[in-house]
């Protein structure tokens, strides 16, 4: 290849590269403006004493120390992990099971698919208000009316510290499981049917087919959805805020709700609110890195 030709190729590549950057430029600008800048600004704000949204004085890590030293932070941190735990317990397997059941349904598949997805179409606040009527501790609460038919006296639910988080997660799962199930169904539909046929001919039971064909086929997707679920649940806010207001006695207070309290709960301390936000981001980043590490390692083994 002569020199002129090499220069021409290099020039062409540069030209293409320039064009590519030009095409990406609006997206990058928008991304920088709406995502990166607020993100970095939040980190910067967490290091300052603030007066409403203005940065008054650089105070290093004082906001972090102050926030983390308070009892409500440790309570909110424990609660947030509890939300995640209950979410994985109640909400992780359910969409898979739901997808498998709907996938195996012969008649009315479309109906069941729509029915499963329907709660996801309801506005989040409406769902919370709906369920608050269900779990009301008054005699007029729906669950209490049902229990009264069985002769059980009225109970309280949302005022019990040990019940509120599982209840909130149940509601969130009721709303979101259908949408996740649809994603699993799409993945399950992609599994080669010949594998099932071969397994059936070889005498594999339903459980064996699920275990050795279906689950390995959706494992990567499940891993991705798992980490997305953790990230999402870790940022839970409006459900406890509307349903229990973080109570009783901070038993359902989440980290994001604590952040909201610092910013808008009366003290307007955006510096401390940003510190909580940065801590949440750091925890989520750490969890994502750990997940990616094990995921990559597993891929290497594969």
């Amino acid at each position: 290849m002569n020199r002129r030709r090499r220069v021409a190729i290099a020039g062409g590549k540069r030209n293409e590269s320039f064009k590519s950057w030009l095409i990406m430029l609006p997206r990058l600008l928008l991304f920088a403006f709406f995502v990166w800048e607020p993100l970095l600004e939040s980190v910067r704000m967490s290091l300052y004493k603030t007066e409403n949204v203005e940065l008054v004085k650089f105070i290093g890590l004082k906001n972090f120390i102050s926030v983390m030293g308070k009892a409500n932070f440790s309570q909110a941190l424990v609660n947030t992990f509890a939300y995640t735990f209950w979410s994985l317990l109640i909400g992780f397997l359910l969409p898979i099971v739901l997808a498998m059941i709907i996938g195996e349904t012969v008649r009315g598949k479309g109906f069941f698919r729509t029915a499963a997805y329907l709660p996801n179409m309801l506005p989040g606040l409406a769902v919370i208000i709906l369920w608050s009527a269900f779990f009301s501790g008054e005699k007029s609460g729906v669950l209490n009316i049902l229990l009264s038919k069985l002769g059980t006296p009225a109970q309280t639910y949302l005022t019990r510290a040990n019940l509120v988080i599982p209840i909130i997660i149940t509601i969130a799962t009721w709303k979101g499981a259908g949408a996740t199930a649809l994603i699993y169904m799409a993945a399950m539909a992609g599994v080669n049917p010949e594998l099932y046929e071969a397994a059936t001919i070889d005498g594999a039971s339903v459980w064996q087919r699920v275990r050795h064909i279906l689950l390995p086929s959706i494992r990567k997707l499940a891993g991705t959805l798992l980490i997305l679920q953790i990230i999402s649940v870790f940022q839970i806010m409006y459900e406890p805020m509307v349903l229990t207001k973080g109570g009783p006695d901070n038993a359902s207070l989440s980290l994001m709700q604590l952040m909201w309290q610092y910013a808008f709960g009366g003290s307007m301390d955006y510096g401390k609110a940003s510190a909580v936000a940065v801590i949440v981001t750091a925890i989520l980043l750490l969890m994502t890195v750990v997940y990616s590490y094990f995921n990559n390692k597993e891929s290497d083994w594969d």
Partner: protein
Amino acid sequence: MKKSSKALALLLVLCFLIAGCGGQKDANAPATASATEAPKATDVPQVSEELKEELNALTSDVIDPDLTCTITLGNWPADTAPAAELAVFEGYKATMAKQYPNVTLVPDYYSYTLSNYVPMAKGGTAPSIFQPPFTDPQLLIGQGLVGDVTDALAACGALEKFSPSYVEMLADKNGRIYGLPRDGYVLGMHINIALFREAGLVDEEGLPIYPKTLQELAEYGQIIKEKTGKAGLVFPASETYGGWLFTNIAWNFGCVGENALEYQDEDGRWVCNFTSPQAIAAMEYIRDLKWKYDILNADATTTDWAGSHSSLGTGEAAMNFAADDSVDQPTANKGLPLEDFALIPFPAGPEGRYALAGGTCYMFAPNITADQATALMAYLRILGKLPFLDEDIIAGMRSDYAAKRDRGAPVLPAISAWNDEEYNNAKRAIIDEFCNVDMRLYNDFFDSISEGTISLRAEEPAFAQQLYRELTAVIQRMITREGADVVKALTQAQESFQEYLDDEINNN
């Protein structure tokens, strides 16, 4: 084709960016069609003849043709508001247009919350006038987020009539005024008479035999719970509401003066004092309401202000700590008949009889000009919120009370924030004309204030919302855990709030 598509795409993106980066809205720019557009006259539903007459009276001559500016009016009623209310506001607007032809009024549906106001004030888009509760003025004044109207207020002659207690709440350290009272309220107790009747707690005239002390409240609540199965007392113990109500109970247990829940020591340092014997006794009382007397609503920890009114209005509870400014909530809004509703004084405690006095005020955007401040005072004068009497103002008041009566809300004497006897008497005369309730169900409340048998107190002075939040958490623990340790919980809350006070004031 491809090139032209790319060019078009880039052009579109550029347009979006330019639109997104548009400058601030000019405060004096003419109103444009937007969310803040005024309801069209044709949209205003029909109102009663009597109300029309009142509105027709809202006309007068030009007062100042030279005053030229634009003011945006927060809290303008939404299109879905009752017809009578909309018509009243349209009347105010028409009067303003006649008296000040060069002042442009831009109605704005904006409803204040601390969280939505701050970015608007910083961005220069806050409405010229808005209505925060009395818990927020000092916070907003301290952070420079509101406008000074002292000169405009002095120019119209209202400054000297301002009640000193309200000046304290709405001025900075230099005495500059940043707000005006809209409505003052005093905390008392709402009663569902139907449940009192069912429990046999009415006299031969059918008037409720109501609790005059906190002890009686517990006992009467117990009778009501036993006889009706409904909660004796609805207690909103969520967010900050529980702590807010608790402070009033604590005052009646003696948490005032040197035993106050928070105070400034000789060095000027703010001290939290949740563990005084008086505060502990008050919290034990709350605990007993749940575990000894069992009179509270089942979901107290998730009940908020609106929920408590709803419980009383729908007959789920017999009593609710509430003020005179929210009597429309259980009645007009939740359907409790006026004859089944009463407002009584806050029950006395073992160490005194206090009631919280507060309310809602008008405050102003930080960037208002002198002309805008003058126009805003003129607007408030038309609304009847300044202590002046003329035909227009009286007509405005009459319209207001007629609208209230039309929608079935109790029309009651208002607690005035102005030291002006003539104004206060005239207002009372108009209210009497429109009064739609049996005043025997309200007299004790108002008499307790006018005769001074109950002492009025403002909210706790330093970081009240945070204080309420801390105390609400303690209350929640008390009413959800039977064996909860009062002293331990209050000590923890005290440490937490003291740390907050140190961070925010003492160490600065």
